[in-house]
């Protein structure tokens, strides 16, 4: 089932994770997540081997939504608020990188304990998916700008999509499309909220969103 091109693509996706953890320019991070989305969109072809009509539709839809539409939405939000850099996250860039590396190592280790079906054994999909989820979670929790937090959420969803690759043959179409749709709607709504945040505070640093506490 797995063509041997899949593993290098997964390694590339993981490298994109590291890049996103270390990059401070927002445009670079958005391009990176778009690239990762396109990469993930192409993977069903390599998981399956042959391309049926609905698989092709899924691939095209994923690439368009993850690679073009959503990054465009996030860029639009970025242009509206005129920010270009993430300054000084809660956890600085170097420790973020190290945490991401530790998380990837942990994901690789934990994935060893999860037994795979015979047709999937030896694949990097489970560790890659867990590592991407951890990276997304890290970006989400340690960055100050609302837009970067939204990008972190996108990476989290990418990780989940990666795992979904294992189930493409067996899962009903409904949930795969549900994932994509949910992603789209979430980002759309997040974009609206970011717009309102910007209008309210003239900034999208979430430092302004810290008044509610005990």
């Amino acid at each position, binding site marked *: 089932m797995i063509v041997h091109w899949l593993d290098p693509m997964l390694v590339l996706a993981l490298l994109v994770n590291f890049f996103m953890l270390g990059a401070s320019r927002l445009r670079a991070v958005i391009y990176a997540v778009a690239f990762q989305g396109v990469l993930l969109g192409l993977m069903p072809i390599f998981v399956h081997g042959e391309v049926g009509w609905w698989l092709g539709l899924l691939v095209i839809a994923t690439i368009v939504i993850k690679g073009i539409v959503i990054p465009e939405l996030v860029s639009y939000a970025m242009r509206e608020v005129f920010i270009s850099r993430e300054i000084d996250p809660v956890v600085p860039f170097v420790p973020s990188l190290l945490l991401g590396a530790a998380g990837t190592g942990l994901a690789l280790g934990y994935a060893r304990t999860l037994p795979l079906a015979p047709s999937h054994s030896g694949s990097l999909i489970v560790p890659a998916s867990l590592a991407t989820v951890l990276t997304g979670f890290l970006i989400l929790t340690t960055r100050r700008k609302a837009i970067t937090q939204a990008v972190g959420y996108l990476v989290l969803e990418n990780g989940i999509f990666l795992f979904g690759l294992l*189930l493409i043959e067996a899962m009903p179409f409904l949930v795969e499309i549900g994932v994509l749709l949910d992603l789209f709607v979430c980002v759309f709504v997040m974009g609206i*909220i970011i717009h309102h945040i910007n209008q309210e505070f003239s900034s999208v640093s979430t430092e302004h969103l810290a008044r509610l506490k005990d």
Partner: protein
Amino acid sequence: MVWNLILIPLGMAAVVFAVPSNRWRPWLLPLTCLGHLALVVVVLGQPSLLGQPSLISREHWLVLDPLAKVFLGLISSLFLLCTFYTAGYLSKEPERSNRVFCTCLLLSLSMMTLVILSHHLGLMWVAMEATTLTMAPNLYFHRNPRSLEATWKYLLICSVGIALALLGSFFLAYSTLHAGLEESTLFFDDLIRQAPTLSRPWMHAAFILLFVGYGTKMGLAPMHTWLPDAHGEAPAPVSALLSGALLPCAFLAILRIYHICVAAGDAAFARQIMLAIGLLSMAMAAVFMIRQRDFKRLLAYSSVEHMGILVIGIAIGGWATFAALLHVINNGLTKASLFLSAGNLQSAFGSKQTENVCGALRRLPLSGGLFLAGFLAITGSPPFGPFVSEFSILTAAFSTGQYWTGSLYLLLLLVVFLGMGATVVGLVLGNPPETAGPAPFQESFWSGAPIVALMGLVLMLGLCLPAPLREILQEAAVFLETGR
């Protein structure tokens, strides 16, 4: 028949969106909920639909099983009473457009019904995600910086939780694939039937992810950080529905996963985790309730505490399962009445801070009195309903030999009572501060009657549990415990 339960609010949401009049639009809400409740009563009453789940064919996406019945009744009645209050609430702010607000309320009713009825893990997940999204605009009704912050936190944290729950669902689906079944499936009936053959490591990982994910929506610590902000800043009826209806829906999702674990014979693992998180929730809520300056946040932490109690009840098992399901209803009704009366207090005094609110019993006898009664109910005083359920959980803990759990539970209940009591007594008793000019808020029928109805129900549940309700709860408890 059950499809109508979902489609009617959906259709009415479209109608509400189209209605141009800001004044009459809110009144469509209680109308819809009345219809919804009537349909629910009919559906619950029909014996033909009370079939055994194993007899239903596997292609059923929506099934009314015993667990669903409990939650459906709660949601429907809560929505009815809260929408009556909402109609009165919105009529006091005629200049603010309530189109989006009303539409989203009906959409969330529809989606919550879908969550309850759905028997497919994926469909339940989609519906849960939809409830997150439909509630978000309602949090932002008042459009100030604080509610914006609350909405952002709510959206972000709950979306992350839902994403983790999706990963957990995928893990569960993969466990069926790995077990070498003919095709992987996410229908609950199939999962329960095949549970003993599913791969253990995958099931454990799936349970943890699903518990963390849906637990975020439920408000369990340490994922509860969105709850105080969201409940504190949302309009009163929205807070009431969040606490009384949305959190129990997330609890139902967790119950379904626990059901699968029980069917797989792996309940011990699930119980340990649930017990730990439940106690942690109660502890964190207790700590933050002491000297809480904002009484709506106080109520939010009380919600966290009660979600902890629910999970502890399930973890203890046996008689405590029945008590936990009863507590879902008790907590939902009491919390709703508390939030609604708190809303009245906030409108009357113009502030949520405890230093500005004092002497509520004198300024607003009805709301203040109901608020005090609600406080007594929620902290477990007889003769109200929550006393019965909380006490049952306690006795179940001691009778099954879990002395540490029971003692800790009792201690935390006491701390909560003291902490909350200090604040509430300060709010309710004493003399109201002098205000120049006429009071902005007058108690009306619509702002008082729903709360009276809710407290009446709570009192009735405490004094005497009606037989049909007892049967439904018993059936649900047996359904959950035996894994069939």
